[in-house]
């Protein structure tokens, strides 16, 4: 029984969220919040890999998200929708259902390649330069998209919603939520396995002392570049999902610095170098944002104040660098060995 408790929890959550949405028990608003939670979990866990585990400081995560969002959004519209720019659909809509995850993956590969482009120059030097270069890339990506009139420029890009609706017509299921769920699980598994692997230990060694790591035989440059690409790729995955959100449009300003800041805040709220911390903070933060929505502008007065106070009393965030299994040993026996704990967090509120 214990051996299966983790898969059981995952399946349970899947049934609860996806089944609930399918049967209409969870209304559209709850589904949207769940979707946001999912996107934020992927973003936070992936940024934690660079800012937490590797100890670098990347502050343009939304830029990579934008690349993933636009690449997969454009692919979806190009392949399956009639569009004024891309013309008639190339493939019948029935193909959209199996091809959707592939489109998401292509988006994340594109984001990872952009990550590679900036990883090569920025990791040759001191840590703070990644901060500035990633910031510049965030500006460049947003500015480049704004200047591409073909894909809507600053007005934004539309058309994904029609494909999503058409997918729902072919076979009625909450496709977006299903793939978001799969994306979360995949992200957590990838990051967890990466961090526990030899390569991941190298990443943590780099954080502690780069020169010592180099001497111990870690190929620091390659490790840094690979880690950064993985992180960017997952941000692209989150972006690809976000492009298909029920609102049906994306515009460049959605991926600007405030968005990057939000992700950074979630990473530090959860604790650097803690996957379960990132998940908990992504959930808390998203729900807090929604909960404070009636406050309007004051939302962004209350949230920073909360964080400044939190920083003063618990600067290491909710979990510090420990995982939920370290804090609650009984959980570990429940899940056996060092299985990842992500799904115990209250994802299904």
């Amino acid at each position, binding site marked *: 029984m214990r051996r299966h408790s983790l898969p059981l929890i995952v399946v349970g959550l899947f049934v609860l969220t996806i089944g609930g949405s399918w049967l209409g028990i969870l209304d559209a608003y709850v589904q949207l919040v769940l979707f946001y939670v999912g996107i934020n979990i992927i973003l936070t866990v992936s940024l934690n890999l660079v800012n937490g585990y590797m100890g670098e400081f990347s502050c343009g995560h939304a830029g990579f998200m934008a690349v993933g969002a636009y690449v997969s959004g454009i692919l979806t519209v190009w392949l399956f929708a009639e569009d004024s720019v891309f013309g008639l659909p190339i493939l019948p809509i029935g193909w959209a259902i199996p091809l959707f995850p592939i489109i998401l993956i292509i988006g994340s590969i594109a984001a990872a390649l952009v990550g590679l482009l900036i990883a090569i120059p920025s990791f040759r030097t001191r840590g703070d*330069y990644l901060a500035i270069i990633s910031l510049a890339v965030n500006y460049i990506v947003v500015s480049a998209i704004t200047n591409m009139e073909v894909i809507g420029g600053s007005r934004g890009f539309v058309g994904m919603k029609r494909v999503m609706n058409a997918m729902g017509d072919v076979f009625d299921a909450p496709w977006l939520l299903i793939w978001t769920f799969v994306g979360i699980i995949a992200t957590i598994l990838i990051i967890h396995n990466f961090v526990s692997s030899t390569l991941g230990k190298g990443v943590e060694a780099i954080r502690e002392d780069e020169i010592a790591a180099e001497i111990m035989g870690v190929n620091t440059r390659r490790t840094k570049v690979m880690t950064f690409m993985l992180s960017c790729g997952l941000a692209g995955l989150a972006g690809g999902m976000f492009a298909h959100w029920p609102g049906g449009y994306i515009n460049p300003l959605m991926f600007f610095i405030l968005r990057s800041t939000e992700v950074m805040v979630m990473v530090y709220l959860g604790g650097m170098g803690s996957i379960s911390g990132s998940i908990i903070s992504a959930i808390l933060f998203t729900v807090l944002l929604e909960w404070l929505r009636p406050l309007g502008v004051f939302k*962004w007065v209350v949230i*920073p104040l909360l964080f400044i106070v939190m920083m003063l009393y618990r600067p290491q965030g909710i979990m510090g660098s420990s995982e939920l299994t370290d804090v609650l040993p009984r959980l570990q026996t429940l899940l056996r060995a060092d299985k990842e704990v992500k799904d115990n967090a209250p994802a299904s509120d």
Partner: protein
Amino acid sequence: MTLDIFLQHLLNALQWGSFYALIALGYTMVYGVLLLINFAHGDIFMVGAYVGLFIATFLLGQYALRLPFTLPSWAVLALTIVGSMILTAGLGVFIERVAYRPLRDRGASRLYVVISALMVGILLEYLNLAAFGAADRGFPQLIRKQIYTVGGVSFTNVKIIVIGLAILVMIGLQLIVRHTKVGMAMRATSFDKVAVPLMGISTNRIITASFTLGSSLAALAGIMFGTAYEVISFDMGIFVGWKAFICAVVGGIGDIRGAMVGGFILGFIEIFVVALGQFSGFEWLSSTYRDLVAFSILLVFLTFRPTGIFGVARRQKV
């Protein structure tokens, strides 16, 4: 591009670069002393402009509560600048005391302080938005604008004052850093943080000094910005402030000359990208490409010289 048009754009670029340079100085001084990227600094610039706005409109008698006498315009300008610089410097030091120093005292990693700084920036920006609304605000004309034309190049006295003031301030700052005890202590702190307290210098006092200087320069930049463009907005901290940080990096963060040069370089790039678009062959280069071109150039530059213009590569030693 004929010479007079070139000179015209050059003047614009110098003015635009002056703002960047003045703000970048604040980033670079704090970084030099603390190794902290003070992300709130752009918003301190914004606050400086707003404080200046309120002082100026009060002195000009536009509120119910007004002075019993009218001040001459030069006095309004001087009082606005001095008042805003003092108040904004106070804000900068207050932020340092409340949000950064406690973290530092607990020995938290400096990345946490950076997050605090980010949060302070957002807080300032949205407090302003909540209090005064999203609309742009007109800035009173503190200097009566006059247009001069010399050999086909026309310029206003405001432009000359902005550029002149920026250069004066930078020379003054260089003198402070090079020739006073506080300046020497600042340089010492950025050189070796461990040895400085052992020499009987209070690090906290030096940090306060650099926040004071940086914030007051940001306030000066804010008022000059308002005077030059006659409009200020709550998000100018993001759009001007963040770019000023990039200027500081291009110049070599931690180096005061670097901040000035970096500011002027970004000013030149931005103005000339827009200017080039007016010539045949470059019509595609509309002004919306400004950020794209500017940041791409910076990225290429940083690839080949990551320590910036004046930065010295620090060899890591075991």
